[in-house]
């Protein structure tokens, strides 16, 4: 295999989001994202009743255990976001469609936010459960390392690199970072293990009411995440469209 010149798509940088081609900017997609946001938002509000009135109080942890209902969805959705970054990065390198680049960037922003919140809620939990704010434990450490990796990913966006180079760099990092995640987890597990293993698995000791509550929280958080992702993606594509129009006006 020898070097071949870049394809026309890569030569001109990312293709500008064409308003005509991007159905994601249409009113139908706007309606779907609004409906998802509304359902997820109202659902999350209703979940507060499940958390504080329906689910029983945990004997050892007391009220602090209620953090679990926010912490778990935040952590899982954060991971889901990073999976979306990986898939978006692969798809962008393959197709060079700006949608995938925007999807990966939007997912990274939301993933960093959600993982950051999961780390904070986890620290509060750890203080009550283990007596320390932070413990070098596989899942915590993996989450923190991922947060660092994807924060670096977001920094790349703000460096003012040429558009195509920026997108390539982010896509490569998005793939490399996701490939690294299992290794980080294994490495920290070899180091030590402390986290309550097996939550949401059989024999985790969860009461049926607690299980139902956490399922509801997960579902609503996932809907809300999907809405956020769509809205952020639409915003990014709209921004590209505006920039392309501004450039066209300057040229004319």
């Amino acid at each position, binding site marked *: *295999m*020898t*070097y071949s010149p*870049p394809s026309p798509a*890569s*030569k001109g*940088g990312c293709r500008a989001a064409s308003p005509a081609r991007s159905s994601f900017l249409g009113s139908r997609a706007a309606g779907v994202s609004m409906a998802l946001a509304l359902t997820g938002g109202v659902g999350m509000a209703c979940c507060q009743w499940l958390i504080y009135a329906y689910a029983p109080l945990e004997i050892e942890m007391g009220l602090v255990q209620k953090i679990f209902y926010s912490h778990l969805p935040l952590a899982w959705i954060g991971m889901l976001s990073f999976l979306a970054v990986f898939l978006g990065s692969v798809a962008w*390198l393959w197709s060079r469609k700006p949608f995938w680049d925007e999807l990966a960037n939007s997912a990274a922003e939301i993933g960093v936010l959600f993982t950051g919140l999961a780390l904070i809620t986890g620290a509060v939990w750890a203080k009550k459960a283990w007596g320390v704010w932070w413990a070098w434990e596989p899942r915590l450490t993996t989450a923190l*390392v991922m947060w*660092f*990796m994807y924060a*670096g990913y977001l*920094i*790349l966006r703000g*460096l003012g*690199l*040429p558009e*195509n*180079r920026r997108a*390539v*760099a982010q*896509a*490569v*990092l998005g*793939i*490399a*970072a996701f*490939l*690294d995640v299992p*290794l*980080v987890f*294994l*490495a*920290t597990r*070899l*180091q030590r293990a402390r986290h309550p293993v097996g939550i949401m698995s059989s024999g985790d000791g969860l009461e049926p009411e607690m299980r139902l509550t956490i399922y509801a929280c997960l579902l609503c958080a996932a809907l809300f995440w999907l809405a956020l992702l769509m809205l952020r993606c639409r915003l990014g594509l709209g921004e590209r469209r505006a920039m392309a129009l501004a450039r066209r006006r300057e040229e004319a």
Partner: protein
Amino acid sequence: MIRFSLVLAAKDLWLLLRGGAAFAQALLLGLLLIFLFSLAASGEEAVGGSGAAVIFWLASAFCQTLIFTALYAVEEGQGQRLGLLLAPVPVQALWLGKALAGLAVLALLQLVFLIALAVFLGRSPEAFPIQGGAMLALADIGIAASGSLLGALARGRGARESLCSILLFPLLIPLLLGAVRVSSMVLAEAPNPALTAALGGEIRSWMELAAAFDAIFLAAALVLFPFVYGEEG
């Protein structure tokens, strides 16, 4: 392809070692780190095996950042990168050449750091010499593979060293964890026979993890490098 990579690596090594400030800069930085830690430890208890291992790998990681940014800076001017790309070899040969050059420089620096550890911290390899050497090789291969890939990402940037560190250090965590853990056993006093078997098992686990890291990042670099280096921008 291999021949081209070796020629490229030899050229880069020649440029880096002959007159380049990058090698001296990396060497000085590593030695300074070891010296500063030894100053901090002076008057207190002697630095243990794990402390010495952390210092050694910290110095290696920082030096690696300097090395790979310097290696990619070599072809930044006068369209030399395009010249390399026009060579009738796969683009991956460039990645391999840079990785080999980086690996050689890193090994050279680490040799000096080991001597510095013995001089300043009084720590030298005491146990598990074969496993320690194998882990050092595995860790260096992983560092070179990922460094050569991500060093290319940072090329042409004003703050390329800091950018490279931000991108690379979190990725290297599993590898560095293993390298530090195994090195701490190597640099600590020789364990009693009963403990040797247990520690040997742990070292094997870390080596397997390091081998997995190497395999993943060698494969990823081969696939991703043409996107990073082969395109315009």
